[in-house]
């Protein structure tokens, strides 16, 4: 959003049209030697790119592509047993001298004077990179005093000024607070303040917004962009999200399987990508701009499957001693939520973390006990079941019809069981099938349904990638021929290219098996692609409920507008974040 202006500023400064080169990475290779005698695993192979002053380079790739290792190599932070196996990292100092960072001793003094001083880094998870036992202020002051000869008092004033710059409200008070008193977005701001404390020439940001909500992400991206302008920094921004790339990048480097696939200016990459994989990445963002349900001509029956009325979930005061409850203000995680779900319909529930969407899903599954309200489920034969009060056999029958797909494909499969055992478990305990031959046949069918070969049945979950595991999770949900599947952030832990595959798989299965879905996500794009109707949750309340197309194009509620405008667009030409809608809670 500021590439053009930044370029001009730098251009004036240097007195030439082209921006000055700051960092050149040439033929960089990093290998990991897992143990002596084993063959070294290559994490980065022969990577070349250049960072110019005042410009933003986005390193894009899926998990395991080597983008973080590349960034760490620049800072000399490659962890044991990894090592730079070859290549140069040429850093152009202000006085014009070039230093090869790859050849410097990462622990030596020359490198330390560059790291943190001229090149700073911010990380994905601000909670783990900030100390929990020191105040935010003392951490920033320490960073300042490490690189500048100033008194404690001067450093404190600088720190307050930095906190003001990163827009932390009332910085004079905030400086003495501890990490846990900051929200995720505030922590990331504090990290940025710390990184800026020595006016670096290059800022490396390693997925700084991945752990944040989409609205907070927009704020942080905006902040980084403004700070970049103010300090004239270059930024290396590591991300897996092409939407973010479209918003902020000047140049893009696409990595895959430890190699650099493509490198060029952002428009070139988006408009004339040479590599199929790059196009796939861009496509996976753009696809979410449309609804797959309308394209497929989905039919929704008027018959109501699940009817939720005035559902409440509150957590009382903490239990102390022998089960006595403290009289304290109860936290209302879900406030009076009502909706209907029709047969064959996909209902999306969207909201930020802490909005109560997962609590709602857990109440629907009776993993949590709702505090008040009714959940009425209409059985196959037309009779109604009051889920909130059901128990024993009725609840077991409900759990046969309504199944769940979990967010984390690594935690949701028992690592001690083979795929066959995992898929057979619901069939066995519900006495649907008992003969080993029948079970084997059904497991084969299920694996076939989710596009996995039948011969993987004897393997353990550790042999599969995230996407494959999520397929197994879906197969488990389908084992009992359910009528409704509740998917809680089922695609959030997956890479973007896998995400659309899984979504399409779920839609295909829906048509074959006449399913309904309740799909919970923080990602409006996924919801728009997948769902017929959307419910927007904000702080436990359902603020908007309507057809997906309407909610995602002309939303009623201010919060939905903010959410919508905070989601990055799919092309550098339509940057949204610069003029996004902000929601202030009334």
């Amino acid at each position, binding site marked *: 959003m500021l590439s053009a202006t930044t370029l001009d500023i730098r251009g004036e400064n240097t007195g030439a049209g082209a921006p000055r080169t700051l960092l050149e990475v040439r033929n960089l290779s990093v290998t990991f030697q897992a143990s002596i005698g084993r063959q070294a*695993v290559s*994490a980065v192979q022969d990577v070349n790119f250049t960072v110019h002053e005042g410009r933003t380079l986005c390193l894009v790739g899926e998990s395991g592509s*080597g983008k*973080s290792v590349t960034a760490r190599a620049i800072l000399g932070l490659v962890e044991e047993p990894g090592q730079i196996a070859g290549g140069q990292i040429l850093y152009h100092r202000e006085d014009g001298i070039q230093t090869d960072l790859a050849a410097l001793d990462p622990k030596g003094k020359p490198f330390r004077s560059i790291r943190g001083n001229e090149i700073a880094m911010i990380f994905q998870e601000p909670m783990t990179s900030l100390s929990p036992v020191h105040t935010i202020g003392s951490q920033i002051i320490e960073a300042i005093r490490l690189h500048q000869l100033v008194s404690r008092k001067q450093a404190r004033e600088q720190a307050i000024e930095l906190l003001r710059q990163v827009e932390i409200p009332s910085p004079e008070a905030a400086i003495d607070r501890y990490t846990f008193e900051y929200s995720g977005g505030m922590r990331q701001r504090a990290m940025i303040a710390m990184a800026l404390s020595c006016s670096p020439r290059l800022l490396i940001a390693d997925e700084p917004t*991945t752990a944040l909500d989409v609205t907070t992400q927009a704020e942080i991206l905006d902040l980084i962009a403004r700070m970049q302008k103010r300090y004239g920094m270059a930024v290396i921004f590591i991300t897996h999200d092409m939407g973010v790339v479209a918003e902020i990048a000047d140049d893009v480097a696409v990595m895959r399987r430890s190699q650099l696939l493509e490198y060029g200016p952002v428009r070139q990459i988006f408009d004339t990508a040479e590599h199929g994989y790059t196009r796939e990445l861009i496509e996976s963002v753009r696809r979410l701009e449309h609804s797959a349900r309308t394209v497929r001509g989905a039919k929704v029956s008027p018959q109501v499957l699940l009817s939720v009325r005035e559902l409440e979930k509150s957590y009382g005061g903490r239990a102390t001693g*022998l089960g006595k409850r403290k009289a304290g203000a109860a936290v209302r995680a879900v406030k009076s939520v009502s909706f209907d779900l029709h047969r064959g319909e996909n209902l999306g529930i969207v909201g930020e973390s802490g909005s109560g969407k997962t609590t709602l899903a857990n109440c629907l599954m009776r993993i949590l006990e709702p505090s008040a309200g009714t959940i009425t489920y209409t059985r196959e034969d037309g009779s109604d079941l009051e889920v909130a009060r059901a128990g024993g056999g009725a609840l077991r029958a409900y759990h046969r019809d309504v199944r769940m797909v*979990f967010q984390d494909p690594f935690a949701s499969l028992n690592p001690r069981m083979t795929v066959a055992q995992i898929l057979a478990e619901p069939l066995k305990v519900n006495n649907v099938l008992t003969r080993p031959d029948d079970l084997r046949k059904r497991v084969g069918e299920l694996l076939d349904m989710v596009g996995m070969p039948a011969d993987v049945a004897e393997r353990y979950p*550790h042999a599969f990638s995230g996407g494959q595991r999520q397929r197994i999770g879906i197969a488990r949900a389908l084992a009992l021929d359910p009528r409704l599947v509740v998917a809680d952030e089922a695609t959030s832990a997956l890479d973007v290219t896998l995400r659309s595959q899984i979504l399409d798989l779920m839609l295909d299965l829906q048509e074959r098996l006449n399913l309904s879905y309740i799909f919970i996500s923080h990602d409006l794009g996924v919801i728009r692609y997948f769902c017929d109707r959307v419910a927007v949750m904000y702080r436990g309340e359902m603020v908007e409920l309507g057809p997906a197309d309407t909610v995602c194009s002309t939303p009623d509620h201010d919060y939905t507008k903010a959410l919508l405008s905070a989601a990055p667009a799919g092309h550098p030409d339509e940057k949204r974040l610069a003029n996004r809608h902000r929601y202030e809670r009334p």
Partner: protein
Amino acid sequence: MTDTAPLPQMDAPGAAPDATASHWKLMWLRFCQHKLALFSLLIVGLIYLVALLAEFLAPFPPQEANARHVYHPPQGLHFFVNDDNGFRFQPHVTAFRMERDPVSLRTSYVEDEGQIIPVAFFGRSTPYRLWGVIPMDRQLIAPVEAGQRFFIMGTDRLGRDMLSRLIHGTRVSMTLGLAGVGISLVLGLLLGGLSGYYGGRIDWVIQRLIEYILSLPTIPLWMALAAAMPRNWPPTLQYFTITCIVSLVGWTELARVVRGRFLAMRDESFVVAARLDGCSQRRVIFRHMLPSLASHIIASVTLAVPLMIIAETSLSFLGLGLQPPAISWGVLLQEAQNIRSITQAPWLFIPGALVVVAVLSLNFIGDGLRDAADPYSK
């Protein structure tokens, strides 16, 4: 989405050679990488073999006193002789002669040159019963001439053969540890599991109980319990009582670990998934939760065994645990409690060295197991 640890992609089915390897196999492969632990496993295996075959390995009955061989120094075992009949294979020890200093009247042993006591491998010995059941009359090392005595590790103040006593002590000390750990394991699993799975009031009561037990000063407690034990009980019964007493205090650590794991695992999504699959509570616990704990339990048990050995040794050393005529490492070390043994019979400390070796080995195994327990980490 961190990608700092690059893993080989396993996208193509059939790419991973250990894809069908079970959890236990992975754990074993990982354990084998820990060379020290593997070596320790060998040592502990040997020690248990000794304990198992004590009667066969010990050359003499452990209680056999011999007034003529008090504080006899160790005799080296030699394999070849070279005498008038030529050089030949003949396992033997050199005989020692007792001498008394005419001035100080102090006794000392000097090597009796030329005098050998021939010994035989798998030679005949006085008949005995292995494990008190199988009648046997051969031992690993036996004197060729019945009635002759040799002391590879010397003798104690009553002239009893240290090697035989050590071998029998190994059986008692190593199994005493096991029995105690077994009881701790059951108690710890049961109470820790209940505490973690149900939470609430049950958890509160069990946690307070654990805190109470942890607050007890152990040495006075043991003194009281040892004093309460009837003196006329046979050593075997005393042995069992000591086991129970030691383990009644030892279960608390395991219970806390198990509780923590249960609490954490109760809400893990594969356990929730099992509940939604329709599994009964018992099936959730035994089929889904406990197997995940098994590796950790094994590791903590391996680390608990050496603690038990130390506890037994130190209690017996203080005279609170096993008492003579029972034999254990601790009882043997009781003999080494005075200055005289240090100056005159340093071989009485051999049981102490064995305690160190056994405890270290078990600790290394525990370390290796703990690292291997979660083969999916790293």
